[in-house]
């Protein structure tokens, strides 16, 4: 089996995780920009973070035979500070041509506040202006349904945004329709306690069909890990699905979404 983890925060993972992914057959990863676990004080912190994502982490991944790509943005949690966010947003356009940058992400909402919405809209504007792919973060827990609804409304109302160039991530049972029925890609995040379990992930794949779904681990500095991705594939296979069906989901679907950007080099396999 070849896997792609379409959403993983490698900067906060150990090299043991790279080793694990390499042994399991993970051939490529994509790493969205996110919250570091604390609010950064200046835009220069983000400039260093973007260098980490574009230059440092791809080299680290390459040692394990893993192709590393990334996304740039200011995340929803720090977007509450609109002034800082605008300074960070100015850093993004000059980096969009970097060969490792796939687009703008993970942008979205956290607590569904007015400030978050303002910064989200300004980053959608950047994506539209520079014709970038978009990776969307949807809120957690009780805020997810409302936040997903706001996000999809904003995107649908902007005629410049092509839904097939947007992936709405962290979808669950009550939000996946809002993504897929509107033509967006959907992401399933397999993450302990707060998101989807491997069993529920396999349920969603069976109930809604595997088209335009990317499964990811979103491994970060919390209790999480790349084995959640492979465990979900094992669960899917254990239910009697063929390996080629699993390959379509866990390898080829990410290739199809990311492949809309010519910088992405990994091709679907038969």
């Amino acid at each position, binding site marked *: 089996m070849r896997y792609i983890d379409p959403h993983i925060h490698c900067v906060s993972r150990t090299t043991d995780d790279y080793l694990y992914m390499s042994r399991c057959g993970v051939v490529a990863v994509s790493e969205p920009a996110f919250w570091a676990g604390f609010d950064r004080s200046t835009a220069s912190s983000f400039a260093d973070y973007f260098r980490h994502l574009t230059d440092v982490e791809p080299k680290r991944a390459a040692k394990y035979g893993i192709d590393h790509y990334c996304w740039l943005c200011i995340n929803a949690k720090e977007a509450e500070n609109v002034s800082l966010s605008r300074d960070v947003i100015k850093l993004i356009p000059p980096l969009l041509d970097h060969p490792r940058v796939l687009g703008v992400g993970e942008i979205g909402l956290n607590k*569904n*506040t*007015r400030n978050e*919405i303002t910064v989200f*809209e300004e980053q*959608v504007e950047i994506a539209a202006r520079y014709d970038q792919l978009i990776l969307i973060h949807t809120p957690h*827990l*009780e*805020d*997810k*349904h*409302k936040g997903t*609804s*706001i996000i999809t*409304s*904003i995107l649908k*109302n*902007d*005629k*410049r945004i092509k839904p097939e160039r947007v992936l709405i991530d962290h979808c*669950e*049972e*009550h939000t996946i329709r809002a993504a897929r029925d509107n033509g967006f890609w959907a992401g399933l995040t397999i993450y302990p306690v707060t998101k989807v379990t491997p*069993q*529920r992930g396999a*349920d969603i794949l069976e*109930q809604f069909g595997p088209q335009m779904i990317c499964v990811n681990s979103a491994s970060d500095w919390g209790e999480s890990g790349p084995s959640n991705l492979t465990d979900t594939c094992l669960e899917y296979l*254990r*239910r*009697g699905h063929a390996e080629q069906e699993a390959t379509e989901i866990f390898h080829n679907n990410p290739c199809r979404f990311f492949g809309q950007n010519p910088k992405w080099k990994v091709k679907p396999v038969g």
Partner: protein
Amino acid sequence: MRDAQQTLEQYFLEMRWRCLSLAADLDRIERSPGGPGVLSTDPRLAKLRQAINVLLEGKGPNRAEQVQTIFSDKTPPPEGATKRRSDEATKG
């Protein structure tokens, strides 16, 4: 695809374990100082009871979605949250 009996065989022990775990969680809260009061008044536990009711009496096959809805914020979005982009986008 496995039939219902085979599916139940595969998952029953996990289902039993999750049910026991929830029972033990509620016992732990009740044993703690102030436990009975929290059990009867905390709005999160009220939602939990509502969710358990979906398992007991609700009809599938979307019980998971019904439970997600119980735990979702249903207040309206901030005023004008999706209007501005719409107005701007229709210009171009």
